[in-house]
């Protein structure tokens, strides 16, 4: 009797076995993740569209075929949450070795010691032949290179040619002014019988619109020591301009603007509410998001006396290496590969901006779609104009930490005016109070 296994005993031993196996697997799982951060694979992170993911993977496959000793583990996603995740990974010590970086954030990360300076590799394993100095400025912080630009980015206005034709309107002139934008956009509203606004609201659009406007007045968004670089009068004039635009229906109201925030699929041109947009995302990350024929014109110029060239050339996205990575040298090889290898250049095409060098642009040109061709031509037009201009400010310094909060603040403040919640005057003083406190934090 005492030697038969009771039900209780059976359960008891089964429980111990189960617990032991659970523990075993927990422990192995732990050691697995622990090894992942420093082990054989080089991790590379980027954000983008499906087209960009595919292109990266194709190029990386070709790279590993030639460099069998470097194994790459890709981590890719959309832009949403990309940097939230990156911050967490850096904090937890599991940051990717090689990372696609935003030109707006590179300075913040470089200053916090997250990114590795690349200068010692330049001219050796990092071949930057053909990259102009003003382009490299996009990845340069305090005189050191922290990221290799993927392509030329210029601020450009996208117009829906198909839609304009239907309304019987011809394209605007490339050398247009802000006043001409106003009358042209009002014309669109009239021609469409009050159904379509001219242009989406640029009043809260820091990078694509206000940036250029301020530079036309000789002011940058930020000074070299990380303060706001423009005056209260400049922003007041800007917001007043857009209030007037909304009033005459040349520009869409708050609801359209608000729903397009962080969501390109709700962009006023994409949903057919406007013909012109300051959001340059419609065509630059893998084909066009609309079926329409698009064309691209420079951001309007200042028509007032003393107005100067406001455009500049920046670096698309960047590739950067993280400082705590043990694989910086390997990451640099990959950067160099993307910068110079013919196959990689063709694979990426315009997916990371207009290619950065003459050689790369020539390689990509034959296979461009008509929309891409026009985008590329417009970028070349703007960058030519910038190169020739004698009155242009130097390219802006990399934005300080907190710049992304200011971008959001500008957007929401303009929106508050658009919704009639605040007067321009009230919005202005709140804006400057908050922006200054963000930048001094």
């Amino acid at each position, binding site marked *: 009797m005492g030697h038969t296994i009771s039900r209780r005993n059976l359960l008891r031993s089964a429980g111990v076995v189960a617990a032991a196996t659970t523990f075993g697997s927990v422990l192995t799982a732990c050691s697995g993740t622990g090894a992942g951060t420093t082990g054989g694979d080089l991790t590379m992170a980027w954000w983008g569209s499906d087209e960009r993911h595919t292109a990266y993977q194709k190029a990386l496959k070709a790279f590993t075929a030639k460099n069998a000793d470097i194994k790459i583990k890709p981590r890719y996603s959309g832009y949403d949450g990309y940097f939230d995740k990156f911050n*967490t990974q850096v*904090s937890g010590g599991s940051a990717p070795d090689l990372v696609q970086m935003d030109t707006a954030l590179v300075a913040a990360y470089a200053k916090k*010691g997250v990114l590795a300076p690349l200068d010692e590799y330049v001219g050796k394993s990092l071949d930057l032949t053909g990259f102009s100095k003003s382009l490299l400025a996009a990845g340069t912080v305090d005189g050191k290179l922290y990221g290799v630009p993927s392509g030329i980015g210029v601020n450009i206005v996208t117009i829906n040619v198909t839609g304009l034709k239907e309304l019987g309107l011809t394209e605007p002139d490339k050398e247009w002014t802000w006043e001409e934008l106003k009358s042209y956009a009002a014309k669109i509203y009239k021609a469409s019988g009050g159904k379509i606004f001219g242009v989406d609201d640029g009043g809260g659009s820091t990078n694509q619109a206000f940036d250029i406007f301020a530079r036309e007045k000789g002011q940058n968004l930020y000074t070299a020591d990380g303060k706001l670089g423009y005056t209260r009068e400049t922003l007041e004039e800007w917001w007043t301009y857009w209030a007037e635009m909304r009033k005459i229906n040349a520009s869409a109201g*708050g609801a359209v603007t*608000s729903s397009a925030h962080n969501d390109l699929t709700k962009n006023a041109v994409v949903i057919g509410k406007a013909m012109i947009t300051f959001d340059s995302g419609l065509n630059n990350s893998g084909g066009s998001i609309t079926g329409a024929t698009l064309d691209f014109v420079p951001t309007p110029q200042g028509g007032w006396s003393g107005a100067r060239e406001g455009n500049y050339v920046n670096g698309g996205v960047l590739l950067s290496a993280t400082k705590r990575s043990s694989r910086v040298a390997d990451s640099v090889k990959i950067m160099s590969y993307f910068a110079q290898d013919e196959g990689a250049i063709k694979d990426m095409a315009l997916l990371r901006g207009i290619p950065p060098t003459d050689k790369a642009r020539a390689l990509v040109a034959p296979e461009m779609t008509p929309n891409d061709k026009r985008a590329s031509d417009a970028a070349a037009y703007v960058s030519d104009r910038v190169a020739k201009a004698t009155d242009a400010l130097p390219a802006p310094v990399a934005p300080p930490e907190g710049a992304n909060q200011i971008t959001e603040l500008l957007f929401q403040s303009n929106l508050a005016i658009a919704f009639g919640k605040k007067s321009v005057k009230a919005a202005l003083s709140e804006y400057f109070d908050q922006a200054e406190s963000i930048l001094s934090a």
Partner: protein
Amino acid sequence: MSVTTETLHKAGEEPPAAAAPAGRERDRERERKRAARRRAGGWWPFLFLAPWFIGVFGLVIGPMLDSLYLSFTNFDLLTPAQWTGADNYTRMFTEDPNFWQSVRVTLVYVGVSVPLKLALALGVAMLLNRPLRGLGFYRAAFYLPSLLGGAVAVAIMWRQIFGEDGLFNAVLGWFGIEGQDWISSPDTSIYTLILLAVWQFGTPMVIFLAGLKQLPKDVYEAAAIDGAGPFTRFRRITLPLLTPIVFFNVILQIIGSFQTFTPAYVVSNGSGGPIGSTMLYSLYLYKKGFADFQMGYASALAWVLFLVIALFTAVNFIASRYWVHYDD
């Protein structure tokens, strides 16, 4: 203390050995040891509890203490934290208008959604607490949104429904009412989130239903004989008897809605906009911590939220003495 140990000793003392046959004595001895072991439990129950201990210390208490420490620093996720004392807390209350904005939005959200949700849950629970054809189906159908509730997909669907070209405006259109973009208007956006919360009334409904099932039938019969109508029966019998359940639901829902994050994040594309109108507290906290490099400040925000929830719960418990009726 000494009394207790003494008593324990006495209890543990061996009873005086009887003049019993040695064999039976040994058997009894063995039995006693086995029983003692059973009482003490041995080491293996702890093995089963270990995952819980690891979870609670590793994933709850440890991180909580860590965040308490971080709330007194300027930790930015990327560089080592520096002690800044109570700076984060004073900044929150004295110089951060966005903090107050998120507090206002959250109080509106909690204050409107919790009562509405509970009222609806109770109403539907009472409808479903009667013989009805296809009852199981209705119960499941009403509970379903609660299961889907936290999902990102549902929040995305909400965006579509209340967008300008959405289903909601289409339905309004049938009645000749011209809608607007409810999500993108600062006056209505928070109410779409409240509606989303109210729509997920399934969990409190199920709890109410369980409570209703336990109400004694004879009381109702007696009341009916005395001529009490349905409304009187509800007010004089159902509601008072149900107060413990109501109390339970109130506590759970208040805690839950203070912590709401996902719908606000998804519906506003992570911005809390338009113009801060959907900036729920948790969303603000998240943005500060993970997007703005202010994890120290975010930790302070989290502790304030924790204290506020604790305060609300405590006030509820105190107030409950005056309106919750237990059987005894």
